[in-house]
């Protein structure tokens, strides 16, 4: 029988000696090259963290491979970052370059530090979830292949944090990212009355719809959807498999930009929609990679040093963002949900655009 409630592994037994010795004593850091952080301790100790990109969806072979490297170069320890990169903690400067070479040998790029694009926080997609409007890993692979140079180099105005979520549940937490790729459905749920009749609590299903589009259908002992009111959030489908929301013809991707979470200089901001829809085009989603590259490079070419995507846009004005990127503005980008009012321009000062 399993021991219940023993809690996670104790981190203390999973940190390398150099961290045990310098825990809480770090004085400053430098970034000697992309993907390498050098932290210097008050004790004088120096720690090199080598950050390697990961596909996140990995095999046992992968895990064992990186364990082998960690044994060889890092006293048998490693860590993962909040963005699912792997970090190798090297206490001996001489091992840095050999480790980077060894990582290269197993196909892992080193980068993602400082003014670069780090790994894309992402989700399950077609690999494992039941509501996706797009794939996750495939789009990430396509985008990261395309923007690879910005991972292994630090040539951007600031860090660029991307996220991908394959449906509006937004497990990728795309809502506060510099650039977010979000799977969207575009058609109302198709109702499978048989499935719904099987043990559905109709009032809860009706109540779950944020726009009040769902009404009871007593005749069918099921529900109906007022299609004009539905905005395809999929909440009803999460509640009930009888509200089939996936529509391969019409599912696809929206792009949001300008979010952030750090408090440095400016307060955290939400990402905002700039492209409402791009059709799924596997395996490489070329329209998506192109749209992303366009936004990234327009920002890179125009922002000031240290200016994050959202800070740049807020400085020049969103109207100028559309002009600079050439992205088409449309009424779909104008909010019409609960907090819409706060997005309307309640002032006569704005810039003209071509």
């Amino acid at each position, binding site marked *: 029988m399993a021991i219940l409630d023993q809690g996670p592994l104790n981190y203390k037994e999973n940190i390398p000696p150099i961290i045990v010795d310098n825990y809480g004593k770090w004085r400053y850091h430098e970034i000697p090259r992309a993907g390498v952080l050098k932290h210097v301790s008050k004790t004088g100790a120096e720690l090199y963290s080598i950050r390697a990109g990961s596909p996140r969806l990995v095999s046992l072979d992968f*895990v064992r491979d990186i364990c082998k490297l960690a044994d060889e170069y890092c006293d048998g320890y490693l860590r993962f970052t909040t963005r699912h990169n792997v970090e190798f903690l090297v206490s001996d400067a001489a091992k840095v370059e050999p480790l980077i070479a060894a990582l290269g040998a197993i196909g892992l790029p080193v980068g993602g530090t400082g003014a670069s694009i780090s790994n894309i*926080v992402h989700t399950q997609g077609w690999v494992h979830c039941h509501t996706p409007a797009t794939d996750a890993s495939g789009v990430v692979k396509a985008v990261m292949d395309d923007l690879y140079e910005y991972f292994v180099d630090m040539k951007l105005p600031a860090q660029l944090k991307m996220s991908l979520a394959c449906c509006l549940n937004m497990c990728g937490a795309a809502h*506060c990212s510099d650039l977010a790729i979000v799977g969207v459905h575009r058609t109302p749920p198709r109702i499978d009355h048989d499935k719904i009749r099987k043990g559905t609590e109709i009032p*809860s299903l009706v109540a779950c719809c944020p726009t009040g589009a769902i009404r009871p259908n007593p005749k069918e002992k099921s529900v109906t959807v007022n299609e004009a009111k539905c905005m395809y959030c999929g*909440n009803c489908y999460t509640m009930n498999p009888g509200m089939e929301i996936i529509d391969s013809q019409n599912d696809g991707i929206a792009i949001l930009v300008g979010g952030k979470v750090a408090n440095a200089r400016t307060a955290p901001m939400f990402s905002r929609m700039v492209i409402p829809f791009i059709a799924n085009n596997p395996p490489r989603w070329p329209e998506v990679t192109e749209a992303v590259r366009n936004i990234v490079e327009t920002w890179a070419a125009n922002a000031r040093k240290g200016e994050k995507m959202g800070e740049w846009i807020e400085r020049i004005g969103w109207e100028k963002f559309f002009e600079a990127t050439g992205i088409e503005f449309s009424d779909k980008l104008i909010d019409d949900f609960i907090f819409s009012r706060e997005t309307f321009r309640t002032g006569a000062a704005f810039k003209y655009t071509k």
Partner: protein
Amino acid sequence: MADKKTPQLDELQNGKWPSFVTEIKKAAVKNEASKELLHLLERSYEEKRGHWKHGGIVGVKGYGGGVIGRYSDLPEEYPHLQAFHTVRINAPSGWFYSTDSLRKICDIWERRGSGLMNLHGATGDAILLGTTTDQLQPIFDELSEEGFDLGGSGSDLRSPSCCVGPARCEHACYDTLEACYNITNTFQDELHRPMWPYKSKIKFSGCANDCTASIARSDCAVIGTWRDSLIIDPEEVKNYAASGMNIQHVCEGCPTEALKYNAETQELSVIADECSRCMHCINRMPKAITPGNDRGATILIGGKSTIVQSAFMGWVIVPFMKMEAESDYEEFKDIITRIWEWWDENGKTRERIGETIYRLGMSKFLTEVGLPAVPQMVYRPRANPYVFWPEDEIKK
């Protein structure tokens, strides 16, 4: 399953970024389910749609969460994917692992699952991706034997997570790893046995850089800060100046105009009372500027993503509390317990705490949870005059 062609996925083995397809193929060599997954995924790429059904209720004895049930909608064609559940392992603080720990997981998973995993899931768990219902209990038993425990799923506390903090970062204002470990251990019941209106998440960031994105991704964000003045090392300021850094430019980025530089004397000073501890100057000049000595954390509540009432960011409910001694953790636990209780009583099904507070009003929340209202909680006061007056402040 017979080998079929997977031209679309094969294409995703090209390019410089490491390929998840290569990973699935590696797993497919040893595992039939992974092989089927490859083909099912190729089919999804052709049809542009997923092939998974809603998860039924599956799990392990004693727990309500920790496993996500998953079934293929094409069980006849992909028999090994008929059931393909995931198991969430609560990861250690800061995602530090000895290779021993990782290998133990691998060994169990090799025997009892697809051999595929996510390191890590977006909430922070180590995700074992794909196994059958009958394997769930043995997996848990064996993991448990090796000291692992499951993470959260369903309407419970989700596995808390934290930034690398004092383990490797000079900015950490409290011990994020210990806080996360300590607090997670206290709330094991809440984590394993769903009983709330909906899920609830906690994330710990050591400073306002918020490297766990706690403000966006957790119902309760614990963000390190300090109460006294940041500390400036005048010698290091001169070194930065000598190295050619534009210190005036750093000052211009200060959102509160609290940082002043005298280019003549090369003196940098701060008006502590005006500094909002945004971390900007410290980020730019880590050798010369450090957080103050009287350190602790700000607590924010309400963060979550889009479904249903829009995405929310957490907002300040405790501007500063110490986060050092066991008694500080106790205070935090006491507050968050009161908050959960309030939410449990007032929240509707599938309503996150932020949405409940928005619906019922901050002042009701603060009063009933027993937190004093302070101006730090808001960017600005209300623009409408719709104040509710409690009976005892009214003349009869």
